[in-house]
């Protein structure tokens, strides 16, 4: 799960990593109040996941209330990365002498945590790597062991930061490591880590990816998800029912249900390649019960343009009879107005087909055949 900047900064504050004074505003009124509290000049940062807001011209400054009002209204009407801006973070504007970059991330290929530091920050890490390779240091860490301050010193020394200059980075980087390892993060990035003219370090941005799988022992994940609204809230509620639901295209008209991430992705692909407009990705996971299948169908009904539902199941750990029972329940309970095209094969497929036949659905055997029926009718 990608955290919003304001969620990430909430965690920073909890661990004692310095951030600019500020709060997130849901509307103009709140924004004015926050700005009055922290004092002008302020910066307005739309809360959108995905980064690169600066380039999109979506970060604004305000010297006074008038500027705040104008900018807030403009930002509220923006669509960034296809999403409407719902929350705007209002923060005290910080004077910047220099920008650094620091992050911890799990390197999936090497199965190890890695520390990345650069004496140049403020632009995306890929750009830093391309422009200033000699100012970037990457250090693989032991997943079992502790990170020790000396490791950070060595890294800083390698990019030409020595002495007292190096010393002041230690507490922040150690706290970022604490956050990263204790909260079991996939990415914990501060970019830029700003140095003020007074020599203080402040985390101006927070880019954090949490591990959804750790939710059972990491309560903040549940809390953040529960506090979010909109489509993300739907995706979260689906997840609570064991469904991986992602909206791909709010305008799409074909609802997709599959079992297994790969098969579901391939189903989305085949529908699109045949000329259809898939609306979503919905993986019912392994060994889905009838109940879960029924809930999956119900979840699709949230898509406003839905015209057809394509259910593509290859039973392995999933049993075809359970799938069929779930689909029958959905038909009976949900007052479905759109047709359902089902492809069913694998474990206990004969029983599954029989159950579906009783409610008038003839399940397909092959994915391609079923997909053609979905797209071309």
């Amino acid at each position, binding site marked *: 799960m990608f955290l919003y900047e304001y969620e990430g900064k909430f965690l920073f504050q909890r661990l004692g990593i310095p951030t600019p004074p500020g709060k997130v505003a849901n509307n103009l009124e709140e924004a004015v109040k926050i700005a009055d509290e922290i004092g002008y000049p302020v910066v307005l940062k739309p809360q959108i996941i995905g980064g690169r807001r600066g380039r999109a011209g979506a970060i604004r400054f305000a010297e006074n209330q008038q500027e705040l009002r104008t900018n807030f209204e403009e930002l509220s009407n923006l669509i960034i990365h296809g999403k409407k801006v719902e929350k705007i973070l209002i923060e005290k504007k910080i004077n910047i002498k220099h920008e650094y970059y620091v992050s911890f991330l799990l390197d999936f290929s090497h199965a190890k*945590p890695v520390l990345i530091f650069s004496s140049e920050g403020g632009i995306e890490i890929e750009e830093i790597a391309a422009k200033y390779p000699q100012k970037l240091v990457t250090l693989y860490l032991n997943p079992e062991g502790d990170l020790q301050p000396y490791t950070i010193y060595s890294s800083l020394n390698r990019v030409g930061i020595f002495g007292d200059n190096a010393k002041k980075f230690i507490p922040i980087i150690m706290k970022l490591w604490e956050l990263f390892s204790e909260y079991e993060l996939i990415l914990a990035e501060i970019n830029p880590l700003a140095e003020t003219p007074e020599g203080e370090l402040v985390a101006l941005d927070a880019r954090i990816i949490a591990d959804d799988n750790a939710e059972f*022992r990491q309560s903040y994940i549940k809390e953040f998800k529960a506090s979010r609204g909109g489509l993300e809230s739907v995706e979260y509620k689906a997840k609570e029912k064991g469904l*991986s639901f992602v909206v791909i295209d709010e305008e799409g008209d074909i609802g997709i249900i599959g079992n297994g*991430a*790969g098969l579901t*992705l391939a189903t989305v692909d085949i529908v699109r*390649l045949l000329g259809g407009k898939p609306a979503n990705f919905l993986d019912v996971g392994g060994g889905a019960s009838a109940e879960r299948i029924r809930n999956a169908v119900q979840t699709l009904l949230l898509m406003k343009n839905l015209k057809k539902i394509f259910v593509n199941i*290859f039973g*392995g750990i999933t049993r075809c009879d359970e799938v069929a029972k779930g689909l029958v329940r959905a038909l009976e309970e949900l007052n479905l107005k759109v047709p359902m095209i089902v492809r069913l094969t694998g474990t206990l497929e004969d029983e599954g087909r029989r159950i579906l036949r009783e409610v008038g659905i003839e399940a397909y055997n092959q994915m391609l055949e079923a997909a053609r029926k979905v797209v071309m009718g």
Partner: protein
Amino acid sequence: MAILVNKDSKVVVQGITGREGSFHTKLMIEYGTKIVAGVTPGKGGSEVHGIPVYDSIESAMKEHEIDASIIFVPANFALSAVYEAIDAGLSPIVVITEGIPVWDTMKFVNKAKSKGLCIIGPNCPGIIVPEETKIGIMPGHVFTKGDVAIISRSGTLTYEVAQICSLNGLGQSVVIGLGGDPIRGLTIPEALKMLESDPETKKIVIIGEIGGTEEEEAAELIKKGEITKPTVAYIAGATIKRTGVSFGHAGAIILGEKGKPETKIKAFQEAGVPVVRFPHEIPDALKEL
């Protein structure tokens, strides 16, 4: 035999008394797999489908010779179960469990590597050598014996591809579902190297997914000539543009430019590997090689 396992591999089922563990133990036995023992802490002394259950692998190994393990325990106990299998020196350790926290997976993958043991998964369907043994949860009837190896980051999509191959007369030497989590034991490049020296395997199908960089690394191996066997690739999710979200446990977290389907497809094409758009195009592509 193919790689990693064969008909004589003796297997312990960890989490044998659970719903999935018990169900698939039955199917594996029916397929011909030599399941010799089960382990569920707290259930030692009972039996599942005629297989004796023990509290610990240590207890089981006092009574049985065991080579490999398949793990069905819930995600919050998976780290313990995998460590137990590692400490017992079992290999491969097939981790079916989905939803394991990635920090746990990182720990057990490193531990297994340091001891030279092979982990398949987690969140994977397992490994099957058709007509010999199945240490996994795949529906056995779609696989047929032959000389095509399939390695895949996907679960059900693997069955799909195996079925299409089988229907088209292309049997399999071995099929490995490597699992959909971002950190995994056996990777595509590692599996490729094993297959390169496997006399049973003549051709290879790689089923990739968006996210991660293994497909790119695999393409690099082929380009450098370390893998010479004819290979076909398919990338699931190639039409998906939305970034910043994770598609299920697909490991499909896209960071920056890395892991995008275009990059993967391009890497394979540059290595001379045909990349098909649909699973059902795989048989023709294989035959043309």
